[in-house]
């Protein structure tokens, strides 16, 4: 791309329209448009392609009359109301626990040593795909899992695994726990990012010098300042938790499952007429998420209104002792459970004989690995290909858009930011079917390129999230002095900006790669079931396969993003080992 740009921009002046075209290319005017198109097309076409069948229109199965029949069938479908209940309970509870514990934790423990420990421990959990974490948690919670082994037989008296619904419980509590463990690191990271941009320390010191306790000072002067920056991430977590499929298949109840899983099963049913009912269910899922987001928004307004008098009411302390303990315990527990889950995956992948209630395997073996290396290796290769391609294109597009901002001297509007978050706010199940119909219309479904496109959609928001702050914070005088030294914008970009941004850029790549590795529904829908990644295989195996086999796939699934993350941290450290200013601050 850059090479092409260089060739298109010779020095000598030419005709006016050509000149304008060249200037527009030079400014990267195409970047925002192409980026917007790449993710608005799948979402808008996908939503439309789901809404139409929801109201009876799906020519592919010979239905062309608009009707409410799919909705009647949906509400008559066995278990729908309990499915909605499971979705709401697990989604709201998971989000609530994650959000409240993280906010309380930061509020009460920001000045305590435990804060640093948890911060360091939580970041790696961010890279672990949802499915791998859910499988590990299932190994922990199952009647024959580590949790029960720890208590048996001395406390419970069980010599054999009991017949209890400890996971896949009918209320979706295990699912809620899984969601809380997985989403807490993301929310913590977002909170820390918001804190670093709002002079939190100075605000806090000002309030504390006025006699406010650290906890209440944080709530009164820091939280109101950072909440606007936490809103979008929080909405994304809520939308995700209410409509998650892969984690819900592994940890959620089975009869009836959560709404998203129920809808997903209807979409996969061999009876094609059920597609219409599924489409209605997917639209219902969209409605539930929208309703929840609106309710949350209303709640925010209400709190903002009623809290005004409290903010200036002069109250200087509140549960300063117990709040840190509760929040610290909650976050430590979810962190601990997260790590225990990962550890269990590794143990099971090397375990051979491991009978209840032993805490460790009696015999170890590499057989699970050698038996499954061919199939797991192939899936890993597909995962790697899709992840590398979608992460690279997402980061390239984000960089092109940000560079366009710099060259054309424009800033992204708040509206554009919300658009960017759209793939994270609209439930996947609500538009992926329509997107698949669109792809199959052009005979594109099942192609690797389509899967990469579907993944790109979900990588883009994270690429922007990871890159926009570092990019905009870069001292603009570096680019200016580069230009004054005779370097073209292209040369300044490749030789000055990109090397200075190497660290955040590699982190963005790693984040996007992790996002891609974790995708389940987009792989299935866009790949028409033909692209087998570690995630699709692991989720498929979770229904009843041997634990050792499952562990091998889950470990590989978790290992890929972790390896990429490690590399993204190691590469700049190695390249810039003799560049002191590159190690601290300026480009990180």
């Amino acid at each position, binding site marked *: 791309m850059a090479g092409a740009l260089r060739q298109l921009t010779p020095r000598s002046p030419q005709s006016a329209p050509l000149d304008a075209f060249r200037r527009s290319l030079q400014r990267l005017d195409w970047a925002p448009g192409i980026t917007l198109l790449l993710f608005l097309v799948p979402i808008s076409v996908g939503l439309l392609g789901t809404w139409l069948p929801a109201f009876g229109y799906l020519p592919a199965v010979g239905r062309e009359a608009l009707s409410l029949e799919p909705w009647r069938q949906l509400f008559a479908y066995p278990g729908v109301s309990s499915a909605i209940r499971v979705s709401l309970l697990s989604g709201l509870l998971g989000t609530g626990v994650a959000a409240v514990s993280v906010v309380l934790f930061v509020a009460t423990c920001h000045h305590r040593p435990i804060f640093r420990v948890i911060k360091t421990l939580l970041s790696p959990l961010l890279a672990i795909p949802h499915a791998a974490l859910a499988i590990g948690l299932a190994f922990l919670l199952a009647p024959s899992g580590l949790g029960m082994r720890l208590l048996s037989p001395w406390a419970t008296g069980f010599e054999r695994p009991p017949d209890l619904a400890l996971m896949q419980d009918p209320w979706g509590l295990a699912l809620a726990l899984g969601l809380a463990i997985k989403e807490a690191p993301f929310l913590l990271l977002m909170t820390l990012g918001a804190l670093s941009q709002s002079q939190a320390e100075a605000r806090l010191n000002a309030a504390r010098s006025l006699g406010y306790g650290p906890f209440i000072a944080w709530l009164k002067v820091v939280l109101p300042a950072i909440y606007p920056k936490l809103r979008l991430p929080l909405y994304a977590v809520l939308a995700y938790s209410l409509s998650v499929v892969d984690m819900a298949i592994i940890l959620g109840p089975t009869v009836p499952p959560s709404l998203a899983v129920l809808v997903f099963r209807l979409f996969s049913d061999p009876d094609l007429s059920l597609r219409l009912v599924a489409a209605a269910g997917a639209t219902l899922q969209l409605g539930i998420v929208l309703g929840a987001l609106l309710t949350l928004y209303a709640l925010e307004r209400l709190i903002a209104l009623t809290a005004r008098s409290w903010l200036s009411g002069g109250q200087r302390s509140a549960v300063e002792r117990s709040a840190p303990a509760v929040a610290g315990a909650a976050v430590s527990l979810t962190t601990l459970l997260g790590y225990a889950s990962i550890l269990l995956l590794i143990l099971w992948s090397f375990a051979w004989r491991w009978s209840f209630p032993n805490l460790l395997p009696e015999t170890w073996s590499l057989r699970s690995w050698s038996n499954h290396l061919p199939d797991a290796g192939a899936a890993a290769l597909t995962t790697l290909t899709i992840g590398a391609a979608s992460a690279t294109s997402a980061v390239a597009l984000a960089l092109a858009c940000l560079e366009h901002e710099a060259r054309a001297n424009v800033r992204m509007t708040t509206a554009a930011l919300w658009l960017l978050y759209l793939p994270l706010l609209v439930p996947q199940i609500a538009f992926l079917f329509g997107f698949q119909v669109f792809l199959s219309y052009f005979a594109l479904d099942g192609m690797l390129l389509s899967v990469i496109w579907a993944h790109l959609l979900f990588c883009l928001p994270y690429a922007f999230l990871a890159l926009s702050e570092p990019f905009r914070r870069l001292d603009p005088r570096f680019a200016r002095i580069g230009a004054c030294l*005779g370097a073209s914008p292209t040369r300044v970009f490749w030789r000055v900006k990109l090397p200075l941004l190497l660290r955040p850029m590699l982190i963005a790549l790693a984040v996007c790669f992790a996002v891609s590795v974790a995708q389940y529904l987009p792989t299935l829908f866009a790949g028409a079931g033909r692209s087998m990644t570690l995630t699709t295989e692991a989720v498929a195996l979770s229904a009843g396969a041997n634990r050792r086999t499952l562990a091998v796939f889950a470990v590989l699934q978790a290992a890929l993003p972790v390896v990429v993350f490690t590399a993204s941290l190691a590469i700049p450290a190695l390249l810039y080992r003799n560049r002191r200013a590159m190690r601290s601050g300026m480009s990180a």
Partner: protein
Amino acid sequence: MTQRHSLRLADVCLSLSQRPLFAPLDVSIAAGEIVTVMGESGSGKSSLLNFICGTLPKDMAAAGKVLLDEQDISHLTPEQRQVGILFQDDLLFPHLSVAENLAFGLPRSIRGQQRWEQVSAALNRAGLTGLGRRDPATLSGGQRARAALMRTLLSQPRCLLLDEPFSKLDTALRERIRRFVFEHARQAALPTLLVSHDPEDAAAAGGQVVHLHPTLPQDSETI
């Protein structure tokens, strides 16, 4: 090697949202001459340099011309102008070695072995012999300032702009670096424009001094 360049600002006036920052400015700078523009912060000194470099922010409007060697360069992109600039901070690229920083300034037309010969000659002239492979962050403030000047001179500028380049240095060092920069600017016969709020800078430059007064709303002030 020393061509006779000249820089002229012809009725240059910058304005921010319709309000002119200073009265139209008309200055001619001959080769080897150092003109000082003095003004309080906010008087538009740095914006003036931005305008000459071609990096004026979009929200500012400019009138008048910049003539470099009698040619209007207002329509050229920053990288085509051959205008050298030094800032308060040395702005050596932190990811490159000292020598790579200097080589960044060299035009592409100088190739191969010649590049490194010119870089090492420049390092010698700046008293930085043997420091080419060092990390810029490990140099002293004075060494960095000299390296930054060398990088700018290697880019073969036709004029030199100095944006308060001495204000962050401590007093003892300021004196030495100032002399070093001025000497090299005169040696290279560059028309030089210095903006500063330090009268000592103006005295040391020994050339014409122009005062930028912020225009009052009634727009009364002239130079």
